[in-house]
């Protein structure tokens, strides 16, 4: 409920009290549906057969460790590829004006609101058993190329998911670049390669770090795409899901979720720290 003044109050409510009342609904919602449940999750993680060492098991138990490494490698690869593609195309699109450019930008940002499950389905249509890639490769090399239901398919799915987000951020950052810097570098005799390395990329660094961190954290925790493609891909969210539903190992699922949440949060916090100070230094 929105805060109201007390009915029939003789004294006007002071502004301070009103501002505090404004925070009340938020406090209640955050406490009941986020903070308390998270505390419960952390405690549950330590109350299984393993006790507190369930948290250590994420790193010591070979199966969990292998999955964690798998997930981190996948997330890192997704981040690197997404950034490379988005910086290249983002720079190009922001620098040139040509007929059809607006349509191209719209196409690149169209999948922005697709949930992970839909992205998974897009990958199935592209590289699945009835997919486009198989149809093209069958007459060419005599066999259907199908890789949607594997970690490569998941990688493609995360690219699909991440490119629209990052390209928008990069384009916005390129738009804010000071053209005078680039002109000065050119006047001083710097070649296009040197200008990109020494002027443009450093200026884009905050945007690159911030959007890279978001891609990484999202790729670590995304569940829908993996769920649609296959249930036996070894990534952390699928492991949590199978521990919880199939093995009924609730404590371990909780411990793994806490670990996953901490990694994702730490990456984002670090990036913000870094990007934030760089922005401040540039300003």
């Amino acid at each position: 409920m929105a805060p109201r003044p007390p009915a029939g109050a003789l004294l006007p409510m002071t502004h301070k009290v009103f501002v505090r009342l404004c925070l009340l609904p938020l406090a209640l919602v955050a406490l009941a549906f986020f903070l308390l449940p998270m505390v419960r999750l952390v405690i549950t993680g330590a109350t299984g057969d393993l006790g507190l060492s369930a948290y250590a098991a994420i790193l010591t138990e070979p199966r969990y460790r292998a999955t964690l490494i798998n997930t981190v490698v996948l997330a890192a690869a997704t981040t690197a590829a997404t950034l490379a593609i988005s910086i290249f195309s983002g720079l190009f699109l922001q620098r040139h004006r040509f007929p059809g450019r607006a349509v191209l930008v719209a196409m690149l940002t169209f999948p922005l609101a697709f949930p992970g499950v839909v992205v998974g389905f897009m990958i199935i249509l592209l590289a699945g058993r009835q997919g486009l890639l198989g149809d093209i490769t069958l007459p060419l090399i005599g066999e259907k190329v199908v890789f949607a239901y594997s970690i490569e398919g998941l990688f493609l799915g995360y690219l699909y998911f991440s490119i629209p987000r990052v390209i928008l951020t990069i384009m916005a950052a390129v738009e804010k670049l000071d053209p005078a810097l680039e002109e000065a570098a050119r006047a001083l005799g710097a070649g296009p390669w040197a200008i990109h390395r020494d002027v443009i990329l450093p200026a884009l660094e905050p945007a690159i770090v911030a959007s890279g961190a978001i891609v990484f954290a999202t790729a670590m925790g995304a569940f829908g795409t993996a769920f649609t493609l296959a249930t036996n891909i070894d990534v952390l969210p699928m492991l949590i899901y199978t521990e919880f539903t199939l093995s009924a190992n609730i404590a371990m699922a909780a411990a793994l979720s806490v670990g996953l949440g901490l990694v994702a949060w730490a990456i984002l916090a670090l990036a913000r720290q870094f990007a934030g100070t760089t922005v401040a230094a540039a300003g």
Partner: protein
Amino acid sequence: MRDRLIFAGQLLFTLVVAAFLIVPAVLSMVAGVTENYFRGVRSGLTLQWVMQVWELYADTIARSFAVALITLGVTLIVGIPAAYALHLRGGRLSRAIEEIITLPLAVPGLAIALALLLTYGGFSDFRRSSLFIVAGHVVFTLPFMVRSVMAVFALVDVRTLDESASSLGASPWRRFRDVIVPNAIPGILAGSLMVVTLSLGEFNLTWMLHTPLTKTLPVGLADSYASMRLEVASAYTLVFFIMIIPLLVAMQVFADRASHQGARR
């Protein structure tokens, strides 16, 4: 000459990326109205798959809209006053609160869903109702509403507005209702679009929180991808696209207008 080659190379690369993103979406839209996807469009166009989706999954579509609207209502009631208070108070405590409520953006949905299940799984009436899903969606979308409204407050001089209304004798509640909220409308609208779009497409949390009787559209989609023929799954995806595209366009228009206004300032 060299410049044109570079331009052509970059354009080609960008076109390939765009094709990667757009071709599967077009394939799915076509498949949803094709008689037999295996034989291709030559087999004829039909709406039978869309009709079948309607028969099988109409309830999930209705439920998704209901969940999104209730989520929107809650985030408005909770988020607007909170954004106002956080903006006015400033300081370390407000930043800490902001930090806490934006945590759900960093913590994977799976973890939040598990936490909600562990805490409220025993309250079976709540657990079984769509409101359980709403709770998850509110946690996940609230930061977008709060941030979007706070962004407007950062541009409008709320403090001065508030003080001048106060000097005219308006009570805090009247000032909030008649001065603050109307000035925050652009942020409220942008936040609302975001909340509804996110809620309609939310899967990570919802898959864990749903029961067989509280399936939403994305849950139904996952269901159809796993168990239905490709044409039905595609038709269902088509329905989702039709729902989500107007929201996306509206968001884009908003973003453009905001950036123009920003440029004028």
